């Protein structure tokens, strides 16, 4: 990687500045054509670019690590990743959640070797340095002998701590001391995420520990798709139409494709597909009633957003959300999308075996493990106050739809490795990803003025936003 007159470290320092240049002389800015909306396919493999991403994106932004209900009790902990760093996510005696680097400051051993459990003291198995759930240093064995030395006071010998912020129970953390609050990163999209995650008094809970698997692909293959790639539904997920999960197959060949209708919204790389409630109603319930003539209240009663499974939860939702947010739910509830950079969201309706309408919340993180590998973490959630027997149904249906064996998502995870494999070739890497099917801003009457709004058939607008945000962090910052 060294250039003629420099060494690898100097090159790397260059890459951390604004307008970085890769060692082959390519400015990172040149990987984009902002006019024609193209991105070099080399981005899906380049190991050098990957190192820059780790520093400029993953070490800077707020990252999703899990949900507060995974660690309900004092001392509960789970081990997760921020970029390639392992962190301990733990709850202290006061109930506060802390995120600490899982690296002993003594000799670099992982302090926690299990992935979840309960402990008021995390004791490194190597030399016995011990830490509290908040990361602070308890002490080292042979206290009188000062085995932790006499140079640093104990306060300086805790685990490295990340900043933590909760969003409706979702645990976010960042290493960046200068980052604004999470709300800044969510931008205008907070309005929609509040709908998804904050619509009941009890809030959400996880339905179990997350599924984890390894995908031999660059993290961005899944990352950019999550930002409203509605188009792939028609071909990659074609079998869903064939088996009757996505409505009538003949419709997909027409210009009016029900599943692709709705409103895409995007801001700062965060994007959501709000899928038309009328088309969902027609394809899933199909009672023949004219959904378009109904009031918002009538619509919400007939087709509440995914996860609102009874009248009690619906009443809570009406209390908690603004009229504007309720209007969104009645017209086109947010269902599929992302949170920049590496969160993927899928809130689904699913017809149940008994003919009624079930639903499920699927939340993924895409954790990079090298330029050609990532871990795909999948949480299944529901509203905490969902009746227990309904939770069991939701859990099974969601697992059959999303995640490891999900009938929808198993096709995605088999596609991404091809893109990274393609990006390794001398010619493959010169190809571009194209985001040229643009609909333009188009806000329907009555739709709130929140984020960039693209109504109609799902096109490339929101996905391009994802890349603009990536560009902003990689090139300009």
């Amino acid at each position, binding site marked *: 990687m060294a250039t003629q007159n420099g060494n690898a470290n100097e090159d790397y320092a260059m890459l951390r500045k604004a307008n970085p240049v890769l060692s082959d002389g390519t400015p990172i800015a040149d990987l984009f054509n902002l006019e024609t909306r193209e991105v070099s396919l080399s981005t899906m493999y380049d190991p050098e670019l990957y190192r820059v991403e780790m520093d400029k994106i993953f070490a800077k932004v707020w990252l999703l690590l899990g949900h507060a209900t995974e660690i309900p009790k004092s001392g509960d902990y789970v081990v997760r990743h921020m970029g390639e760093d392992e962190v301990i996510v733990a709850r202290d005696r006061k109930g506060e959640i802390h995120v600490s680097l899982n690296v002993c400051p003594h000799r670099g051993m992982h302090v926690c070797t299990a*992935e*979840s459990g309960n402990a008021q003291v995390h004791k490194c198995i190597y030399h016995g340095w011990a830490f509290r759930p908040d990361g602070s240093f308890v002490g080292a064995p042979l206290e009188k002998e000062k085995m932790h030395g006499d140079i640093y006071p104990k306060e300086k010998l805790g685990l490295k701590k990340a900043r933590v912020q909760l969003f409706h129970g979702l645990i976010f953390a960042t290493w960046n001391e200068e980052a604004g609050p999470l709300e800044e990163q969510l931008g205008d999209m907070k309005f929609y995420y509040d709908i998804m995650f904050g619509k009941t008094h009890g809030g959400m809970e996880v339905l179990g*520990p997350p599924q984890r*698997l*390894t995908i031999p*692909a660059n993290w961005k293959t899944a990352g950019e798709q999550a930002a409203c790639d509605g188009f792939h539904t028609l071909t990659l997920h074609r079998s869903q139409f064939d088996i009757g999960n996505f409505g009538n197959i003949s419709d997909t060949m027409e210009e009016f494709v029900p599943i692709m209708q709705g409103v895409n919204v995007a801001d700062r790389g965060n994007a959501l597909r709000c899928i038309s409630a009328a088309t969902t109603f027609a394809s899933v319930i199909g009672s023949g009633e004219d959904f378009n003539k109904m009031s918002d209240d009538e619509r919400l009663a007939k087709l509440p957003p995914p996860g609102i499974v009874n009248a009690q939860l619906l009443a809570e939702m009406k209390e908690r959300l603004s009229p504007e947010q309720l209007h969104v739910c009645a017209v086109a509830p947010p269902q599929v999308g992302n949170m920049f950079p590496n969160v993927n969201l899928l809130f689904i309706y699913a017809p149940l075996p008994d003919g009624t309408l079930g639903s499920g919340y699927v939340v993924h993180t895409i954790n990079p493990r090298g330029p050609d590998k990532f871990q795909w973490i999948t949480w299944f959630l529901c509203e905490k106050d969902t009746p227990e027997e309904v939770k069991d149904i939701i859990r099974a249906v969601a697992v059959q739809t999303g995640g*490891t*064996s999900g009938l929808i998502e198993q096709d995605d*995870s088999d596609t991404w490795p091809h893109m990274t494999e393609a990006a390794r070739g001398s010619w493959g890497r010169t190809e571009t990803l194209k985001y040229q099917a643009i609909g333009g801003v188009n806000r329907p009457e009555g739709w709130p003025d929140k984020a960039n709004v693209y109504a109609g058939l799902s096109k490339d607008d929101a996905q391009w936003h994802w890349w603009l945000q990536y560009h902003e962090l990689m090139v300009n910052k």
Partner: protein
Amino acid sequence: MSNTAEKIAPFEIPPISLPKPTDSITHYQIQQFLHLDAYLLDHHLLDQWLNILAPDLRYFVPVRQTKERKDRDSEFSTKLGHMDDNFQSIALRVHRLVNTGTAWSEDPASRVRRFVSNVSVWETDVTGEYDVISYLLLTRNRFYQEDYTLLSAERHDRVRRKGETFELVRREVRMDQSVLGMPNLAIFL
């Protein structure tokens, strides 16, 4: 003679606590049943495979976490699985794979081989139903890959006599990986 294992061990050795296995004929028949199961799956005879599944099937692949030894009882989630299916949902999976021509996660199909060994069979409280534990070593190869993705697991099955043969009533697949090493479970275990 005083150096028996009991005397030289640093602690009291407990007796083996496994129940007595079933008779050798039943054991053989059930082993053949497991071979049939693997043959049908390895040879993409998924529609025929449905014949050996009971209508009241429960098929579960629990999520696993690495835990400290003292917490080992809670390694496997009793609630959340990588797969959580019944006969109806399995049949839908098979329908998608066999009849649509658009089940891309397995088209082109993976080349999979299921090595089934270490079979143990126990009788249960229900006449004609047996608890069966077997080891599974599964190799999966796909597309251009020069190497295999491997999956090793222990299968806890309940099988029921059905005429001359058996049917699968319950399968719980306890994988040895906490992080699955393949991008999906579009295949059956």
